[in-house]
């Protein structure tokens, strides 16, 4: 079997499937072999669904033979392990849900199942998606395929590492403050967070409901578009899902940027930014200019408060979202207890890891009577200001560009003792979650041998402009063709 199969993009694999050059079973077996070969080093998977994958691959081959293939029929994929999958364990990389097998599919899982995509497994994450390095997984950290001593970013570190290392053709992650884009950047692939409400959150195990959004991690921009096409659109089961008929985003894939107005927010070259990252970003902006875009300086002065706003709102929402894990109905349950309340406390003490507990406590405090106005309410007010700043910049610009992460991948353990340093990883990505706007990270080069990412943000439902810029940039450069040696 051709080993390079696993390095194909999903759309290249589609072409081969449609021509009959390869079967879904062959692609799936190649993926599973790749997982077997390297995942004891990368650790991108919490669960590998070998039998299910082979069964789905055979079904996909029948469908392809019948001429009924959808764009993702027969393509091996992974899903982040906070996306519920019917009959397949969904752990959130937490002791609390280690044994949890959902009796339902998330809406995105259901759509991809109907599309005929092949599930090869579930991706590791920071416990309940809280973290930026995947070191907060209760099971094991994931390693960056570019340097196994380093983190893949997070919280969708498993999905990013799996896609970058050829274990799956694409994966879905969730992005609450940068959890798709930052690991995408650190692993040298494309990570995209859609407009809040474009993709249904039904069945995504909630971290922070007003910020969470599911999106694709892929090897190139075209794949990002194809996966988004498959999962976007109104879902009556999610009341925050927008009643909007998404266009076919492949129409946005154009190689010139004539007439596009692109803003570079001056506040996004932050202190402490790695020089290689800054250099890559400035060079990328030159490329955009050479493609015909008009480049101008933008300003988002309240960006400096975004991190503070985020660390009030996200923990507040999570303190309620995680209240249901009490050991009574499902999941981990501590039986050795003196009373009901004792059982509750011990279940939560032992079922949750330190970062999850830290955020639950932060959020509980911020919502407490007497503190609500000073913290939660104030954060919501600043959130409105940040959103308005973006709105006014999007009157002048079709998109804003900046780096995705201020640094490249750091070493495992390097930031584990300093939560604030860890939180600063998301300083460039989380404003998009606060404002509910789409953002994408595309590979923009290497700094000291590690991938850097260019981030493009657009106005709400401005995915087409964002994809056009991402695609034109990608096609004008060669960064997306780099693959890590493993």
């Amino acid at each position, binding site marked *: 079997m051709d080993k390079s199969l696993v390095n194909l993009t999903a759309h290249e694999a589609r072409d081969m499937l449609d021509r009959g050059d390869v079967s879904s079973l062959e692609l799936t077996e190649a993926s599973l072999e790749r997982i077997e070969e390297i995942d004891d080093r990368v650790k991108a998977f919490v669960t590998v669904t070998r039998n299910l994958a082979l069964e789905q691959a055979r079904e996909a081959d029948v469908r392809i033979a019948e001429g009924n293939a959808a764009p993702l029929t027969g393509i091996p994929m992974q899903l982040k392990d906070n996306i519920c999958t019917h009959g397949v364990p969904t752990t959130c990389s937490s002791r609390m849900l280690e044994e949890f097998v959902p009796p*339902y599919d998330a809406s995105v899982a259901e759509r991809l199942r109907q599309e005929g995509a092949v599930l090869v497994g579930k991706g590791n994450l920071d416990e309940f998606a809280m973290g930026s390095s995947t070191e907060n997984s209760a099971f094991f950290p994931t390693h960056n395929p570019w340097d196994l001593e380093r983190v893949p970013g997070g919280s969708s570190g498993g999905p990013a590492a799996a896609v970058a290392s050829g274990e799956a053709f694409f994966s879905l992650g969730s992005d609450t403050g940068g959890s798709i884009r930052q690991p995408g950047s650190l692993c040298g692939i494309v990570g995209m967070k859609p407009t809040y409400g474009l993709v249904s959150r039904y069945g995504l195990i909630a971290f922070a409901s007003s910020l969470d959004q599911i999106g694709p991690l892929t090897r190139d921009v075209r794949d990002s578009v194809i996966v988004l096409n498959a999962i976007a659109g109104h879902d009556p089961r999610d009341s925050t899902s927008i009643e909007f008929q998404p266009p076919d985003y492949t129409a946005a894939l154009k190689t010139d940027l004539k007439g596009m107005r692109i803003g570079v927010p001056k506040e996004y070259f932050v202190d402490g930014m790695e020089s290689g990252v800054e250099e890559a970003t400035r060079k990328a902006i030159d490329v955009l200019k050479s493609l015909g875009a008009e480049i101008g300086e933008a300003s988002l002065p309240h960006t400096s408060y975004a991190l503070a706003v985020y660390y009030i709102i996200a923990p507040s929402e999570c303190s309620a979202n995680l209240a249901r894990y009490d050991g009574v109905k499902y999941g981990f349950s501590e039986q050795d207890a003196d009373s009901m309340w004792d059982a509750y406390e011990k279940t939560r003490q032992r079922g949750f890891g330190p970062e999850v507990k830290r955020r639950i406590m932060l959020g509980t405090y911020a919502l407490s009577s007497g503190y609500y106005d000073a913290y939660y309410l104030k954060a919501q007010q600043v959130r409105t200001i940040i959103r308005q700043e973006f709105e006014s910049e999007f009157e002048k610009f079709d998109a804003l560009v900046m780096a995705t992460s201020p640094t490249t991948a750091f070493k495992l353990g390097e930031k584990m003792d300093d939560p604030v340093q860890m939180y600063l990883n998301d300083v460039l990505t989380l404003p998009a979650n606060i404002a509910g706007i789409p953002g994408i990270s595309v590979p923009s080069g290497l700094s000291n041998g590690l991938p850097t990412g260019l981030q493009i943000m657009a106005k709400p439902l401005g995915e087409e402009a964002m994809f056009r810029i991402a695609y034109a940039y990608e096609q004008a450069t060669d960064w997306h063709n780099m693959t890590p040696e493993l």
Partner: protein
Amino acid sequence: MEYEVVVGLEVHAQLLTKSKMFCGCSSEYQDGEPNSVVCPVCMGMPGVLPVINKKAVEHTIRTGLALGCTIARNTKFDRKNYPYPDLMKGYQISQFDMPVASDGCLEIQVDGQTRSIGVTRVHLEEDAAKLLHRTEDYGEGYSLLDINRAGVPLMEIVGEPDLRSADEAREYLVQLHTILQFIGTSVANMEEGNFRCDANVSIRPKDDEELGTKVEVKNMNSFRSVHRAIEFEVERQIALLESGGRIEQETRGWVDDEEITVSQRTKEYASDYRYFPEPDLPPITIDPLWVEEIRASLPELPAARRARFVNDLGLSEYDTELLTISRATADYFETALNSDTSPSNEMAKAIGNWMLGEMARLQNQTGTLLDDVNIAPGQIVELQKLVDGGTLSSSMAKAVFEKMYNTGADPQAITEADGLAQISDSDAVGAAIDDAISANPQPVRDYLEGKESAIQFLVGQVMRITRGKANPQMTTELLKNKLEAMK
């Protein structure tokens, strides 16, 4: 010292919707086996999301309008956080600072006095699951959880502390209960727990402006227990103050068999619910046109109906109260009346008498609800017409009514089949009178000698001869004429 009683009631009523508040499960949870009317959403499983039941919002608006409330233009849901095993998500989706309806009132009449009781707000939330506490024979206790009730739409109606006695509190509750049933927003059955009431009770020296420390009383499951609990609580608080004690702000539970309240939770343990806007549900804008549509579809409210029964139909206050006890009763009454080609106040009175007399007696005897009564409303009018037309005596009509009640047959048919028709033919009655006179010379002599009461015996004899069918009025009249002619 003389004290004034201050009571405010908080009522929770389950809404009469087909499905639950945030999912598609049936809200008829009581019919199902435990934990059978459930889905991932109402079980609060990981990753699921709520979707608002529009009918529940409509019912809350309808209730708000019936209570004269202002309906919010903008409203939203909030999370009320507290851990308890009956709360599937660890928080309840409720409404904190922007309820659907606010600032209404409800009129009550107690001891001939009409008072307007303020309604602070009506808001929408979800019911919790049901915990069943069991103890094994050998003494070990455990609890069972039935999730069927979780997520059933619940409306909370918060009343102002305007009530001044246990009597007023009961009357407010009865009126509120009647209104909810009238407008069809709740089954409001207190025993089944879909209409629940908590009371905030305090006392203060008469003429004091400042409110006393309030005690919240829970666990009352009938109108009577609400009344008794408030009476008990007032006496307890007075006794406590009189003996130099202080009233503590606390929650107390009513123990029905012992008729006392006991302390459940003091203020030290008061919960901080950490309310915040529900991020899974966008705020709701209520279209004023929708509100007007709902207003236009409201049925006549009990107070207006009662006024019409008294003023237009000439019914007594007492009969009116009983005939409007439920919408079904009042509807039955009016359907009957309107089946008459030209409804009169006399007919109204007669229908009322049948319903509150014979029908109520038979219903009590057989334990039958109005819905299950065999007699169609119009048949009561037909029966009354047989009485008015002289075909049936009132005692015969009662017998016919009982047959109607048992069989559902028409009064005319029963009368004919049983040969019950009254003899109102003067010749036939006359013949029976002649027989009675000739067979009873002594009473006839008594009458002719001035002992007028002797006529009663003779009437009785005519009835015996005709086996009760002679028209009693006609009999008395003809008999009198014949006897007078013999004088």
